[in-house]
């Protein structure tokens, strides 16, 4: 008898089943974190084994939608890593300003905190009106939240601090209306935002863009899937377009290390090479 554990047999089967049934491809995600999240989902969804979870997911789309909430990572905040947004203002915005119109892609926008942060930066830099923003994610529940633009009011104190450190020119409270325990963000920030279900694992390029911000998404992918996603970004970006990654993500272990040059290496802002 093989010494491989049951769960290590069941996990790839579950991912294969999800792919065949729902066309969501988690097969090339980083294994360790994915295994933790599936084990967590087992407990939360009261399944005794991954096989039981698989049987339920196959027969019940609602069950899959519940599992999807565990398979994707919702960790996000407004102006997360404020130095990133400050660096965008200092190093990227002046060059974006030279274009008469802009297309910006927030890939893996999750529940929208990153999107609204970016829209505020663009508004304050006078670029929002000439921008089309594509906000994409694989999780329809997250996309719905992003569309609504309502975030917990009790987070606004932290977000305000982030916003100021990120070079904010006003007060964050000018951009939202407080109601009950929520902060509803100014709808005008989203006037030119196109929300879309898009998978970096299975979909292709849909537009030529000037700037792509994709933060803390690639860390969940294995080498192959990282390369696929970076390939999409490289293809989508215009000549000398910009790419922003998460604070601990880098191009150096990917196939695309040589295809981009750093603009601000510490803040993981890159530019497509000539």
């Amino acid at each position: 008898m093989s010494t491989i554990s049951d769960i290590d047999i069941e996990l790839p089967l579950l991912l294969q089943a999800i792919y065949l049934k729902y066309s969501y491809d988690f097969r090339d995600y980083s294994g360790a974190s994915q295994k933790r999240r599936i084990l967590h989902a087992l407990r939360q969804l009261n399944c005794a084994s991954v096989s039981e979870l698989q049987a339920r997911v196959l027969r019940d789309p609602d069950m899959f939608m519940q599992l999807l909430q565990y398979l994707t990572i919702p960790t996000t905040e407004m102006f997360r890593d404020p130095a990133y947004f400050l660096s965008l203002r200092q190093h990227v915005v002046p060059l974006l300003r030279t274009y008469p119109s802009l297309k910006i892609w927030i890939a893996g926008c999750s529940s929208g905190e990153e999107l609204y942060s970016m829209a505020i930066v663009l508004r304050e830099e006078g670029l929002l009106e000439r921008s089309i923003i594509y906000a994409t994610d694989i999780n329809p529940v997250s996309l719905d939240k992003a569309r609504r633009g309502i975030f917990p009011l009790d987070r606004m104190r932290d977000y305000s601090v982030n916003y100021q450190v990120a070079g904010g020119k006003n007060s964050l409270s000018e951009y939202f209306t407080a109601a009950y325990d929520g902060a509803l963000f100014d709808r005008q920030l989203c006037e030119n935002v196109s929300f879309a279900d898009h998978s970096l694992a299975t979909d292709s390029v849909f537009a030529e863009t000037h700037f792509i911000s994709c933060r803390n998404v690639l860390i969940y992918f294995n080498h192959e899937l990282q390369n696929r996603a970076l390939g999409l970004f490289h293809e989508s970006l215009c000549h000398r377009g910009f790419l922003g990654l998460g604070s601990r993500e880098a191009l150096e272990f990917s196939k695309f290390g040589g295809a981009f040059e750093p603009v601000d290496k510490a803040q993981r802002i890159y530019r497509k090479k000539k």
Partner: protein
Amino acid sequence: MLGKDRDIHIEAAGTKKMPTASTKAAATGRRSTVTDSKVKVIEKKVRTANQETIAADCIEAIVIGTSAGGVQALLRILSPLPRQLRMPIVIVLHMPEKRDSLLEKVFQEHMAPPVRMARDKEPIDPGTVYFAGPGYHLSIERDRHFSLSSEEPANYSRPAIDFLMTSAADAYGAALLGILLTGSNEDGARGLASVHDAGGITVVEDPATAEFATMPQAARELREPDYILSLDQIQSLIHRLETHDAG
């Protein structure tokens, strides 16, 4: 002290299969099956001495977890290491999330082998001491590279020792040595139990002498470790494993 260790050994040896040299098997992410005769030989060795008998060529990586009191403890056990290491040492030391980590600089000043912050998708170099950076969980994938993730903190900690150790146990199986040092929360207990369950060797700093006993004590209560050692004993164990001539 020696007598205490010896007791632990004998108890551990009776219940535990010691790892075999399994570079090939571990590289494919699978554990080798320990044959009965090998187990007997190793058990016999274990019964005759203390931790000196952990066979160096059975271990391919060391993971260490610690929180409060951890900087001093780590400096004590790691600073005598030579420049050339035989196997990687991967460390989670709890830190405030938003602070830029100075760990690399601080520890490099006090030790000879290269000290690095572990980076996402970086292949693990055997000769390096790695630290998990603040704000992200650190895992080891089965094909022996690092991955980062920003799931919610576990045990109020990100990076969590549990996550590093559990993933390392999956990646290295029996060829892993897990060490839990001083600390003031219970992170690491479950991770160290995973190391044990995968056939690896587990060491806990003696709670009686640890600066903060909560972390090693929690690990003891969840799963009796193979060895309970003082910092000096841990230091000599690591030194011996890292300098053993595999020749």
